[in-house]
């Protein structure tokens, strides 16, 4: 193991992180050389530097699919340090990135044919934006990694290109004053980097605004759906017990299969509500009137109950109908409100304001709805 690599800091396991449990920080440099995305080593003034592939292979892609589904994303960490793309020289640009592998992958796959350096900070395996907001992508961390990699000896210039979304965590003027390195904020999207570099490090205004198109809004839906699995199973279980209790109260015979079928039928409108809250609200976001996200979710929930009770089910009595109107929009409103965390534009003050009204309303509405639903089985 070379000097330079030894000098690179390991992830500090004892560091308190409010964002992630510590034991997940398992990346180590010993394993890096054999990683699928390393293509070789490059000699520099300060020792060898790993070269990384500018194309993603199948392992990268299956890894990112798993990460999207919330499976094993904790291991999705790149060891912090300096990496080379192509055959960079002392004059080549330095890009700075987070050590979340998805961020790193999205960056390097746009760099085919370029020669440059990538400085990967220890952001505890979190993407640039969250890390900047939470303080792990910071001026101090940037300074620490510049020192640890002896970057000043490897490159002859003093410019670091940071993702624009790192700006909440890094102070460009403080960095300049304390380290002599000038921070330039690059485009939001990695895809714009080649154009940014060829255009004298100038980002066009449209490169500075994160897009929030339909695919952007839906890409987190799978992970949210997986997260809803448990509550959904709980609800099915509840309906099962209620159906059973109703049969017992009636002294009717209990047939497991029909009981299960009935419970799934009872769950169907709620299943649709979950899909509406997680898929349809984000998809139709710009078209649903109003601004608060809980409100947008609530609107679609009410529409769904209307459709369901008028067109789909004919057996719902007044109590059950009322319970649907209370419970289902509460679910879609909650899921809509939850989507604030996935947007590119919601502010903390706004979320706090929205929640101060929406949360009590949702809890009240859901509780009354639940009582109505339960009562419906016995009346």
């Amino acid at each position, binding site marked *: 193991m070379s000097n330079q690599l030894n000098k690179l800091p390991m992830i500090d396991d004892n560091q308190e992180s409010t964002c992630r449990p510590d034991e997940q920080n398992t990346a180590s440099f010993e394993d890096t050389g054999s990683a699928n995305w390393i293509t070789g080593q490059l000699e520099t003034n300060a020792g060898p530097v790993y070269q990384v592939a500018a194309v993603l292979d199948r392992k990268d892609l299956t890894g990112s699919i798993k990460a999207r589904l919330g499976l094993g994303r904790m291991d999705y960490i790149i060891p912090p340090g300096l990496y080379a793309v192509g055959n960079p020289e002392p004059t080549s640009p330095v890009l700075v990135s987070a050590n979340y592998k998805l961020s790193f992958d999205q960056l390097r796959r746009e760099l085919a044919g370029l020669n440059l350096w990538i400085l990967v900070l220890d952001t505890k395996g979190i993407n640039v934006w969250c890390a900047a907001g939470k303080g792990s992508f910071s001026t101090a961390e940037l300074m620490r990694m510049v020192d640890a990699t002896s970057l000043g000896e490897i490159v002859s210039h003093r410019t670091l290109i940071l993702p624009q979304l790192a700006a909440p965590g890094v102070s460009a003027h403080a960095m300049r004053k304390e380290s002599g390195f000038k921070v330039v904020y690059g*485009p939001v999207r990695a895809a714009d980097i080649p154009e940014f570099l060829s255009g004298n490090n100038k980002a066009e205004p449209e490169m500075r605004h994160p897009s929030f198109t339909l695919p952007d809004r839906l890409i987190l839906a799978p992970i949210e759906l997986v997260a809803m699995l448990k509550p959904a199973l709980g609800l099915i279980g509840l309906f099962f017990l209620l159906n059973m209790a109703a049969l017992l109260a009636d002294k009717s015979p209990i047939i497991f299969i029909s009981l299960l079928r009935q419970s799934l039928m009872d769950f169907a409108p709620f299943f649709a509500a979950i899909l509406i809250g997680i898929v349809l609200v984000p998809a139709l976001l710009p078209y649903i009137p109003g601004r608060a996200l809980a409100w947008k979710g609530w609107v679609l929930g009410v529409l769904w109950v209307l459709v369901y009770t008028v067109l789909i089910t004919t057996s719902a009595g007044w109590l059950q109908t009322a319970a649907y109107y209370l419970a289902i929009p509460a679910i879609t409103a909650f899921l809509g409100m939850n989507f604030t*965390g996935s947007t590119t534009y919601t502010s903390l003050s*706004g979320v706090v304001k929205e929640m101060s009204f929406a949360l009590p309303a949702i809890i009240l509405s859901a509780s009354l709805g639940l009582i109505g639903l339960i009562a419906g089985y016995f009346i």
Partner: protein
Amino acid sequence: MKKFKYLKNVVTLQIDQDKCNGCGMCMEVCPQQVFTLAGKTSSITDRDACMECGACARNCPQQAIYVRPGVGCAYAVLMDKLNIKGKCCGDVCGCSLDNIPDH
């Protein structure tokens, strides 16, 4: 592309134009194009678009901007209220803007 806007008149953003030297840094780092250069100083022209990320305040060399930075994520606010730690960003929720090929 159309800019998404959240609630009206809620954000904590403030600028002291007497301190501003018009360097333009706030306009460069703001992901929501909240500022425009008015004469020789920056001014807030699209306040409701601000997402309180704090980039402008941190990068203003004149300390002319104030904003209470935070993450506009209901889940995080909820966990915070319930005093549950270690369940955020990239762990359970979609809090991460993973969807943005960020750089």
